[in-house]
Every structure is written in structure tokens, then in C-alpha cells.
């Protein structure tokens, strides 16, 4: 079976202005389609059990601040047959995500990965190789670290054996049942955002002058964070920010004037099982003034969300001592918003 790459190339994402592209590969039943469905089509993780095997290359395009196309190549493809076509894909691709099922024997997977890396780096020396050690929700903490260590060791050893030293390769532990997949995907996307340094700089300046402890720039639709300031980040903070986005959007939709199809978010757990209530959350944001919300927590932390341009949202953590100056903070955020708009116009 040959890949019908021509079909895919007809898609607008691959048109005259090719947007950064991510290719997802891996052996069959590794979890590639589930990841795409959960991240970009709002499917509930439990529903991914019913997804059928992918037979043709499928592309998900998500456009917000940055336009991305994620192309998922079916696992059954015998890769060596389609070598030439593959090189065309790799050369215009920013990152290659390879999904390994950590609950299964992964030796075959690693062999496949190795040959893919050889071809990819040949076609595009600048490509980022991202290895997702997937389905780790079924493994204990020790097991996960062992798997990561083992896989990292094997892959880098094999690359060294072949004399490839300058390959940009990273390993991530992921699962669709928690926030780890979003975090990993965020890191992949960040490496492809050309304006990343500028965004981080803007966020740093904002934080310093507004008494904000931590700020994230999230894409509301996929809950990937595009940039964050330079202060250290921990996972619980990231998780509560993603949950906060869910809550704000859900609550807003309860009183929204236009009756668009309601998004199914994680907080709307498993409502309407079976009926495909899959909508792009970005489209379901009602038009109106930019959404914002603030929440006080008992430990003195304030969560602050403000919708920005193009489906982005700024989510900040402050301490309650900053609250009396909230007007100044909001003033600063308006400057930040203007900067984002200009950045988007240029880019």
C-alpha cells in the first residue's frame, strides 16, 4: 500500500505558505490518533477506545496564533517502500513526533524509529525529533523513569553507532489521561514558534512590572501553552491553569448570547456519550468582549485569565498582595495585548 501523499499535498495547509508542520509516526496501535483526537478535536480520553485504525495519512490543522498542521501517518505503512515520498514530507517539516507504546514491547518500535531518524535527518538536518513514551498512565512511577532511561539510552547509543551526533532529539513521558500530553506537545510546539524568544521576553517584562509570579500564554482551543516566563515551572501550576481555562469557557457559555454548539471540555466529563459532540473549542467561543476571569484561592494565590488575540489567553498567577494594584496590572496587560497584536501582524 502506498501512501497517497499527493492527496495530502492538496490540502491548504500545504499550500503556497506552508505552515510549520508536525509529522506523527509510530507503530500501529501506539496512540497517535487518540492523541490527535483528544488534543485537537476535544474527544474525551475514554472515548478513544472506539477509534478505528488509521488507514490513510490524516492531517489536523489548527490555526490560532500560529498555524499548525499535524500529519499522522498510519502505523501499518511499511516505511521503506515509501522512501521518496517521505523525504518530501520531512524536508518541509519542523518536528517529527514518534509515539512509542510504553505498555508494549518496544524493541521493534525502536528499530523503526532508528531507520526513520536516518531518513528524516538525511532529508532535513534541522528537524526536531520528539519521542513520546506514551500510555504511561498504566505504569508506576519507577517503571516510567526506567522506561525513559532505557529508551533514551538505546536510541542515543544507536545514533552514536551510526555517527549521528547533531540530531536534536527529546524524550517525553505522555498519557492522554492526564496533562502530560499537553505539556509535551507544548514543548514540541514551542521549539517551532519563531517568535518564542520575543514572547518570553514580553512575558518576563510583564511579570517583573506587575508583580505576577508566573504567566502562561495558552492556546484556548488546544490548551497548549505557547510561551511562559522564565521563572521555574511546576506541573501542578500548569494543570490548574488549564483547568481554569476550561472553567472560564464553560461558565461563559452557559450565559452566552449566541447558541453555538456547546464544547465538550474535560470539566464536562463524558456528557452525551457516543454522540459525537466534537467541536473546535476556538470556534465555539462566542463573539463579544474578550473573556476574562479572576479567582482567589485560600492559600493567597490569585489566578487571572485574560483572552488575547487569535484564540490565545494569558493566564497568570499572582499573590493576593498584588490585588490592590490590579488596575495597574490590567493597564500593563493592555500593553502586552497591543504587543501581541503587532507581533501577529508582522508574523
Amino acid at each position: 500500500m502506498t501512501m497517497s501523499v499527493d492527496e495530502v499535498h492538496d490540502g491548504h495547509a500545504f499550500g503556497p505558505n506552508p505552515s510549520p508542520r508536525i509529522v506523527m509516526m509510530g507503530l500501529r496501535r501506539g496512540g497517535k490518533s487518540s492523541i490527535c483526537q483528544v488534543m485537537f478535536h476535544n474527544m474525551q480520553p475514554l472515548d478513544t477506545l472506539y477509534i478505528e485504525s488509521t488507514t490513510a495519512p490524516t492531517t489536523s490543522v489548527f490555526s490560532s496564533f500560529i498555524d499548525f498542521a499535524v500529519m499522522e501517518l498510519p502505523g501499518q505503512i511499511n516505511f521503506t517502500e515509501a522512501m521518496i515520498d517521505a523525504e518530501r514530507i520531512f524536508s518541509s517539516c519542523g518536528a517529527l513526533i514518534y509515539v512509542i507504546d510504553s505498555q508494549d514491547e518496544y524493541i521493534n518500535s525502536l528499530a523503526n524509529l532508528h531507520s526513520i531518524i536516518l531518513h528524516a535527518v538525511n532529508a532535513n538536518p534541522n528537524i526536531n525529533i520528539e519521542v513520546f513514551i506514551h500510555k504511561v498512565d498504566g505504569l508506576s512511577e519507577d517503571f516510567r523513569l526506567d522506561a525513559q532511561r532505557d529508551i533514551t539510552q538505546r536510541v542515543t547509543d544507536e545514533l552514536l553507532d551510526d555517527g549521528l551526533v547533531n540530531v536534536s532529539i527529546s524524550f517525553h513521558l505522555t498519557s492522554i489521561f492526564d496533562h502530560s500530553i499537553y505539556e509535551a506537545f507544548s514543548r514540541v510546539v514551542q521549539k517551532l514558534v519563531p517568535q518564542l524568544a520575543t514572547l518570553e521576553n514580553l512575558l518576563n517584562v510583564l511579570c517583573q512590572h506587575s508583580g505576577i509570579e508566573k504567566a502562561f500564554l495558552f492556546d484556548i482551543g488546544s490548551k497548549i501553552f505557547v510561551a511562559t516566563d522564565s521563572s521555574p515551572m511546576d506541573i501542578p501550576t500548569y494543570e490548574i491553569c488549564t483547568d481554569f481555562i476550561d472553567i472560564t469557557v464553560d461558565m461563559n457559555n452557559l450565559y452566552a448570547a449566541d447558541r453555538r454548539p456547546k464544547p465538550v471540555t474535560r470539566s464536562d466529563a463524558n456528557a452525551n456519550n457516543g454522540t459525537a459532540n466534537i467541536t473546535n473549542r476556538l470556534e465555539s467561543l462566542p463573539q463579544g468582549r474578550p473573556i476574562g476571569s479572576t479567582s482567589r484561592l485560600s492559600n493567597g494565590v490569585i489566578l487571572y485569565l485574560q483572552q488575547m488575540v487569535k484564540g490565545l489567553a494569558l493566564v497568570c498567577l499572582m499573590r493576593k498582595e498584588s490585588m490592590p494594584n490590579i488596575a495597574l496590572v490590567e493597564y500593563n496587560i493592555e500593553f502586552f495585548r497591543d504587543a501581541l497584536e503587532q507581533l501577529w501582524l508582522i508574523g
Partner: protein
Amino acid sequence: MAGARRKLLLMGRSGSGKSSMRSIIFSNYSAFDTRRLGATIDVEHSHLRFLGNMTLNLWDCGGQDAYMDHYFSTQRDNIFRMVEALIFVFDVESKELRKDIETFVLCLRNLYEFSPTAKIFALVHKMDLVIVEKRQDVYRALMKSLEDTSAMFSFQVQGFATTIWDESLYKAWSSIVCTLIPNVTVFQKHLQTFADISEADEVILFEKTTFLVISHVTNARSPGFRSDSTRFEKISNIIKQYKQSCSKLRAQFQSLSLRGSDCTAYLDTMTANTMIMVIMSNKSDSRGSTDQIGNSENDGDSDDSFASEAENNIILANIKIARKMFEKIEMMNPDAR
């Protein structure tokens, strides 16, 4: 001061979902967590303080046949005396519906003898397992039989279709618990006053731990007020999830303020046991005038269709003042009106 004690009987076949429901509403389990619950052994008692002046005495009666036999023989007296409400759970997938209804009838017979003033509730549970088109029919069919049997004992049964996987669970339990609150009409009256004075479109009062709706007032004074008909239980569900997220940071949330696309909403602590949500909608009708709103995004000055900063502060001040009044209501003697 002795608060009102309300004894609730939670009965139904083994595996119908009684303990799962109980743990989600009263013990902060997520729907996912309930899979680790085992069969209930005999009767599990929970004493839950609800508001300041009421204790819910929940009897979760294990549904296995051996226990059920006891309930209707040796423990009849103990179980069915002084019952305020019976909540009977029907598993919509049950293969022995006849037997379930017979058990229901037995309960009614015993209640007629020992607690004739008890309120009867039937939950048609696990509705997520029925395809959407059939749900209404399945529910109505079962309720018809239940209404007929209840009428035989001069009871009126109130039914709900529920599942732990969406907000319908909150709707059912809010309704049930509301009928048990001794002075719910007093809450309603004062909430109405609060809503009128604040000129709010909607005001909702929630119990703090369970986030069940105690009372709500909808004035809908703004022409731009649009709302989802199932919003009350959805809010309970959403906020419960938020509480679970916050607990991961070892904190609890105290307040939430939303500047939405068409509304402004505040959720704040009212008393030690309640939280209040105040919703003010867009003052102008936004239908067909998206252009205007779109333009005003960048021009903060012409944004006067939304609640101004001053009005927001007034709401917060009102909540503060009303707090004392609501605290008094909670501590009221339950028999006073």
C-alpha cells in the same frame, strides 16, 4: 441548638449506583474515582451537616438480597421509622425490573406503616447507557409504573433521570435536598430581596461543600439575558471539578469573578456554609449587533453596556452586608417560618 435531623433512606438493587452517587455528591469523588467502590455491607450511615441548622442522616442500604431480606423482616422497625425521604435507585439496565418494582412496593408498604409522611423519590440511573433517542421513553415508561404503584399508598413519587457522567446527578440531588431544608422559603424570600436590590439578572445560592443549589432567583431584567436551561446543575458540576483541581494545589477556592462575553458573574462566599453567585447580563440586546460589540473590544470607553467597575464593587459590598442576614437564617430554629 438542636438542628433538624433528616433521615434519608437510599435503597435499590445491588450495583445500581447508590454509593457512587453518595460519594460524588457528599465526598468529592470524581465520577472516575467511583470505580474503586466495593459493595456496601449492610447499611452505611453518614451524618452530614448541611447548612447550619440541618443534619442529613443518610442510610445507604446495601442492595444485596441477603441484606434486603433483613430490611423487610427483622430490621423493619429500625429502617423505616422516622424517615423523611426515600430515594430509590433503579438501574436502567436491570434485567429484573419486575423484582425491582416489587422491592419498591415493599418499601412503600413499610413506609406507609412507619413513616406515612415520607417523601418518595425515584432515580432512573445510569442513563448514559441508553441511546439518546430512547432516553425519554425509557424514563417515562418506568415512571408510569412507579406513579401507579405509589398512588396505591397515597404517595406521590418524584422521578429524575440521572447518570454520574453529567450534571443530571446534581439536578436530582439539589431538588431532593431542597425539599428537606426546613426554612427554604425564608432563603428564597431573602434571596429575592437581594436580587432586587442588586438589580442582578440571576442570583443562585449554593451549599459550600456539595455545591447543591439551595435556592435561585431569576429576574432576567436585562434584555440581553440569555441562559442555558440546564445551567444550575452544570454550574454545580463545573465548580465541583474546579474544587478538585484546587485541592491538587492544597488550596480551596474562595471566589471567582467572570467577565464573560455577554455577562459578568461573581461567585463568592456568603456564609460558612453557602456560596452565592450573582449574574449581571449585558444591558443591550446583543442579537444582531455583533458589529457594535466587536468594535467596542478595542475601545474601552464605549463599553458601557457591561456592568461598570462601580457596579461590580456595589455587588461585592451588598454580599458583605447580606452575609449577616443569611447567617441568621441558617441558625434559625428550623421550625420557625
